[in-house]
């Protein structure tokens, strides 16, 4: 026989609402409130899965996240999610539930023959074989058989999980009696308490064990606790798993909802009380993994909450007092149950058959329990409920750095006081008696006066239970990963005796139940085999997450545009209306070209127009760092390679910022507006870096006095007008243009607002950078744009600018420099040779490497045919020696010069000018001539026009 629904019991189910769903091809009906597991049990479905390696039949073991067997893929609303625990998922109408890792179903799994070969595939067998023919040969087959659930390629879960930061005075984890008492006490003391529980209701184990507190039934006490918490401004989070303890009292929690997205909490708590309870241990006997063998505690949970009776002829095995109320509850419900206790005596039982001094030695049955042996003698039974004791749930204590001590009285590891500032109370602290748990909770919450009391004065006795290596048959230690006691013995004999080695060798404790029911067993088994005590054997490290947490919850909305968000131009909409196409450049979204069609063709056309008439591009992302004060020049002299204190007001100078390692960190033009005001420009992707280097110099070198640094990059919009007709366009737009020579700057006004005009060129043509506060950018843009047609001009994008600057040999940091490039590699040797004062990076320029004559230097290339070189080609000697001498860093076809141009870094480049060099790309070598970097107008005629 098998499990069934009791006529009347079931506090969580609504018998008036029937729910139908499909499991492994058959229709199952349950009630609103059922979990998938409880509904299956109610329908007598015991075989709910197959084990990972041996494909043995498996049934529901537990009631929550400790469940090792009942793993399912669930299809609902057209989307399938793998590896859910049937014990934690509410049944819903129309669900299609499938057991994992079986084919075609759990009942008829075609791999069930694997168990016949079990003696040839023990733990770690794959380390000992699969070597001949290579692992690659066997791997595909192994991979197909491994893995539990299946990813549904069509299911892209929505990106909608909110994430909230929160603070509280006291965080209480767990709402069993100890947690309720702690929360109530703290709240009554005026503390803002956050009370959290994984379950959907308050009460912890009180929900099925019941109890009276302060003379009232426990739900009343729970309600008082809840009221106190809310009144003091606290919060209660149910169906919430607190899964991680992080540094400085930060905790992560996952709150589940049914009709809205799950939520990720980051909670910082001043004080934390852990009342997370304890998890029941299995008993170990042959075939202890058969469907029908269940945790006694879970069975009582199912009886009281869902009205599930696991069988018609139930056997309960135990060695502790705490199982007795469970047996009593089954007896009172009219169920046929027999309790056997390994000990010689136990608490009172009314009307329940029981026997002492005997223990389970095996479970018997084919696809489920049909019998058992007790001390070797066969008894008929169809459900075996077991209790091997309890393991305090100390995970979060250990995650926060706390250590554990062995407590023989409860046969478990409990928190060692003083090793973490968390307070642990109740069963999590090894305190299983209700009264004592209430007292601990009350004290932890800072409760004044009398602690809440219960009538029950139990001090439960627990006798240690250990796996017996001499028992015949296979005893399961980790059910999900199919690890038996024989595997532990094998690991021990092969030298894998430390707990971590045992775990990794056998994979014990590494399944999705995270060792809830197996870690202690493994520890105890190894301890028994090696003769070391449990504390000597050790304990595995506890790390987040306490329970598997959905990845979508942790990632939240940090996706798509919100992942590493790109910076956007103030004038983006205006550019779009001009037909701009956008791409990511240096962390910004910027126009690449304007118009429809092939990008390269468009870029070439834009460059042509800009060179022959005029073009405008948005240069706003270029950094604008104001350096202000009497010490500004001094600061720039120290932080820069080229001295700026000698720059005259109204003038501009090109310079570099080096790192202390001597490499070129950034290049750019510095403007001097007046005696005490400079503007340092920075490459758009390096603005923050330059700003922090300046700030470092300001604080460390100058004591923070005499100079301030202000990042104005976003606050100002810069439009660059470039080309032979640049001045005409600006004048034609009605903007008064001061007389400026190349490399000078002037501050003026545009429509009564500040306008800064700098005559600087990145294109090699006459060029003016017009900067206004971003609020007025539209006006400037409209004015300039309106005049374009008259001068045959055009908006141009970055691709065109890239071509033009390359024609001039102007570098792009990070593209034409490789991060080992020093300024003298780029032809800027002057300051290195001449400066006697200190500046950042100076000493590094004179290390043996800095002085080497085989350094890679910036050069240009002329191809021997008319095809551009491939960027990324490596430069190689012409004699065929396959040695890299450098690489091509920029390469374009120049319409202006009517030939390809290229730049690159070449070993002893300047010494090779005029020579031919090989360019290696994907196995082919082309030849090119080494020339200087500047291909167009080296005298600068166009600049100074």
């Amino acid at each position, binding site marked *: 026989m098998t499990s069934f629904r009791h006529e009347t019991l079931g506090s969580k189910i609504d018998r008036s609402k029937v729910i139908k769903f499909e499991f492994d091809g058959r229709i199952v009906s349950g009630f609103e409130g059922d979990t998938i597991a409880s509904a299956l049990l109610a329908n007598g479905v015991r075989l709910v899965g197959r084990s990972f390696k041996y494909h043995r039949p498996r049934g529901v073991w537990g009631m929550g996240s400790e469940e090792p067997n009942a793993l399912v893929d669930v299809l609902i609303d057209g989307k399938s999610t793998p*590896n859910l625990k049937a014990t934690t998922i509410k049944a819903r109408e129309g669900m299609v539930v499938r057991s994992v890792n079986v084919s075609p179903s759990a009942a008829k799994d075609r791999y069930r023959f694997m168990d016949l070969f079990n003696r040839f595939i023990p733990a770690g067998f794959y380390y000992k074989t699969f070597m001949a023919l290579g692992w690659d040969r066997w791997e595909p087959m192994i*991979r197909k058989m*491994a893995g539990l659930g299946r990813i549904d390629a069509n299911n892209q879960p929505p990106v909608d999980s909110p994430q909230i930061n929160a603070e509280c005075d006291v965080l209480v984890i767990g709402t069993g009696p100890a947690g309720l008492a702690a929360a109530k006490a703290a709240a009554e003391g005026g503390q803002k308490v956050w009370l959290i529980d994984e379950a959907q209701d308050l009460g912890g184990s009180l929900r099925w064990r019941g109890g009276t507190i302060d003379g009232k039934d426990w739900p009343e006490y729970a309600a008082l606790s809840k009221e106190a918490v809310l009144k003091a401004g606290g919060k209660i989070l149910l169906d919430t798993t607190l899964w991680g303890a992080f540094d400085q009292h930060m905790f992560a929690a996952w709150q589940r909802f049914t009709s809205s997205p799950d939520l990720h909490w*980051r909670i910082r708590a001043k004080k934390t009380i852990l009342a997370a309870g304890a998890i029941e241990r299995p008993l170990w006997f042959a075939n202890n993994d058969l469907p029908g063998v269940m945790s006694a505690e879970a069975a009582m949970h199912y009886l009281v909450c869902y009205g599930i009776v696991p069988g018609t002829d139930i056997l309960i095995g135990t060695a502790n007092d705490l199982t007795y109320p469970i047996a009593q509850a089954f007896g009172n419900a009219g169920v046929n149950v027999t309790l056997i206790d390994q000990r010689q005596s136990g608490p009172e039982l009314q009307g329940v058959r029981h026997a002492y001094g005997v223990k389970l030695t095996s479970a018997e049955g084919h696809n489920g329990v049909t019998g058992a042996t007790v001390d070797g003698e066969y008894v008929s039974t169809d459900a075996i409920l077991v209790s091997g004791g309890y393991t305090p749930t100390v995970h979060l204590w250990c995650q926060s750095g706390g250590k554990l001590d062995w407590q023989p009285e409860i046969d478990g590891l409990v928190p060692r006081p003083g090793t973490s500032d968390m307070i642990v109370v109740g069963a999590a602290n090894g305190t299983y008696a209700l009264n004592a748990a209430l007292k601990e909770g009350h004290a932890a919450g800072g409760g004044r006066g009398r602690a809440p009391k219960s009538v029950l004065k139990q001090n439960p006795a627990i006798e240690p239970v250990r796996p017996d290596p001499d028992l015949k048959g296979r005893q399961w230690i980790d059910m999900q990963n199919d690890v038996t006691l024989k595997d532990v013995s094998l690991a021990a004999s092969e030298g894998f005796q*430390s707990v971590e080695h045992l775990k990794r060798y056998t994979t014990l404790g590494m399944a*999705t139940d995270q060792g809830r029911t197996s870690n202690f067993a493994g520890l105890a088994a190894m301890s028994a085999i090696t003769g070391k005590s449990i504390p000597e054997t050790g304990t595995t490290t506890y790390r987040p997450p306490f329970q598997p947490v959905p990845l979508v919850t942790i990632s939240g909305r940090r*996706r798509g545009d919100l992942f590493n968000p790109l910076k956007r131009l103030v004038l983006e909409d205006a550019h779009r209306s001009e037909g701009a196409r956008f791409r990511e450049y240096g962390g910004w979204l910027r126009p690449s070209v304007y118009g429809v069609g092939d990008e390269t063709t468009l870029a070439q056309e834009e460059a042509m127009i800009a060179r022959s008439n005029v073009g405008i591009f948005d240069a706003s992302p270029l950094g604008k760092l104001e350096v202000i004060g009497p010490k500004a020049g001094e600061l720039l002299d120290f932080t820069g390679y080229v001295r700026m204190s000698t720059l005259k007001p109204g003038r501009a100078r090109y310079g570099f910022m080096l790192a202390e390692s001597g490499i070129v960190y950034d290049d750019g033009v510095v403007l001097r507006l007046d005696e005490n005001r400079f503007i340092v420009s920075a490459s758009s992707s390096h603005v923050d870096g330059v700003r922090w280097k300046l700030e470092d110099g300001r604080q460390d070198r100058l004591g923070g006095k005499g100079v301030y640094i202000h990042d104005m990059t976003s606050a100002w919009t810069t439009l660059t007008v470039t080309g032979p007709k640049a001045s005409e366009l600006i004048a034609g737009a009605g903007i008064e243009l001061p007389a400026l020579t190349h490399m000078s700057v002037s501050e003026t006004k545009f429509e009564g607002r500040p306008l800064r005009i700098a005559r600087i060129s990145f294109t090699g043509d006459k060029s003016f950078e017009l900067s206004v506060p971003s609020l007025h950018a539209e006006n400037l843009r409209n004015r300039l744009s309106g005049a374009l047609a008259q001068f045959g001009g055009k908006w141009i994008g970055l691709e065109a600018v890239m071509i033009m600057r390359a024609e001039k040999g102007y570098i792009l940091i990070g593209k034409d420099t490789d991060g080992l490039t020093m300024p003298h590699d780029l032809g800027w040797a002057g300051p290195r040779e001449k400066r006697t004062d200190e500046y950042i990076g100076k000493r590094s320029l004179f290390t043996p*490497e800095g002085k080497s004559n085989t350094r890679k230097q910036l050069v240009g290339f002329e191809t021997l045919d008319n095809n551009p070189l491939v960027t990324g080609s*490596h430069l190689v000697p012409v004699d065929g020696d396959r040695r890299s001498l450098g690489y091509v860093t920029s390469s374009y076809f120049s319409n202006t010069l009517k030939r390809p141009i290229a730049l690159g870094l070449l070993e002893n480049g300047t010494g090779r000018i005029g020579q031919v060099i090989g360019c290696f790309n994907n196995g082919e070598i082309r030849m090119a001539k080494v020339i200087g970097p500047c291909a167009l107008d080296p005298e600068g005629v166009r600049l100074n026009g």
Partner: protein
Amino acid sequence: MQHYSALSLLKHGISSHKRWQSAWRKATPKKAYEAIIIGGGGHGLATAYYLAKNHGITNVAVLERGWIGGGNTGRNTTVIRSNYFYPESVALYDLALRLYENLSTELNYNVMLSQRGMLIGAHTPMQMEICQRIANAMQLNGVDGELMSAEEAAKRVPLYNSNENARYKLMGGIWQGRAGIARHDAVAWGYARAASDLGVDIIEGCEVTDILSKNGQVAGVETNLGEIRSDTIGIAAAGATPGLTGMLGVDLPIHTYALQAFVSEPVKPCLDTVLLALGTGTYVSQSDKGELVFGGGLDRVPTHGQKGNLPVQEEVISGLLEMFPAFGQLKLLRQWGGVVDVVPDSSPIIGPIGPEGLFINCGWGTGGFKAIPAGGWLLAHLLATGEHHDISRPFDLKRFAEGRLIDEAAGSGIAH
């Protein structure tokens, strides 16, 4: 050493696997050895093996303060590759890859090397140019590197985000076919078993508390199990190295940071290659058990605690889902942290240090697992001959004073 094979499994199966010997001898330390290796991780154990195998020096002790392979060797994301930029780096990592290719057979221990290839994925034209540069660097150095197109890349990782609103559209990238993954614990255990069989003493639970030297020559170590003498000592202790060289007053260019790694619950095969996306900085592969193993950048807070924090977790996981939206169906099953010893140029430090007879192999940062066989081979060479192997010479500590950094991140343009 009992030979491992399918046949031996069969035979032992019949006798219920009661006759397997310990994989390595649990030795007690002698008073002196010809060479001592401090650190029983992959690199230390490989060093011991190659000292015995290549140089015939078997009177060797490996001292491990915890349990072997318990540091970074047991905590990494198991990727093996040699897709590097500088010829020195390629020589180093490809030596390791070539040794890995034959390792299972040589050690008679299945390290489960799966050469399923690795793609470094680009999402901008400029990144593709960098990828071309690296692919060419690899080819010039005799290693299998190629630039992969967007179409081919999409076939390799069919579940990669191809939505319109994808933040990082895959344009292709660098492909190395010989790259892949291996079972990290097996590498440590395989080397331990083979070294032990050749006579090396592996001593767990042995912590070095002082390094002894006299007249500029190293003399031995002080440990919690007593003094052990040797005039040849190699340190392969990753983040613990500065603490050890500090005993001799020697500083190293090392910062220690936590590197986190993550594992999802196991699912049926859904990712057949290793992927690192330049945009997200997240890398991922699927273990043979079916778990997705992934990671990303460092927690840039100097630490010796093997633990990271939420900001990096959230970023790495977001990166993974941005690359593979379907993986949003999965849950985080395990996460852990290791302490990685990071050097300014992201290249290791191999060579002599301090007194005569003392050598270090450290600074592998986030990339030590792939290099284990090479690290062992090269440190063994130093311990046996006192001289650099050609491949380790460029990585000597001297390079910092010379200003000759082998800066992979700078050279390749990829943050390392």
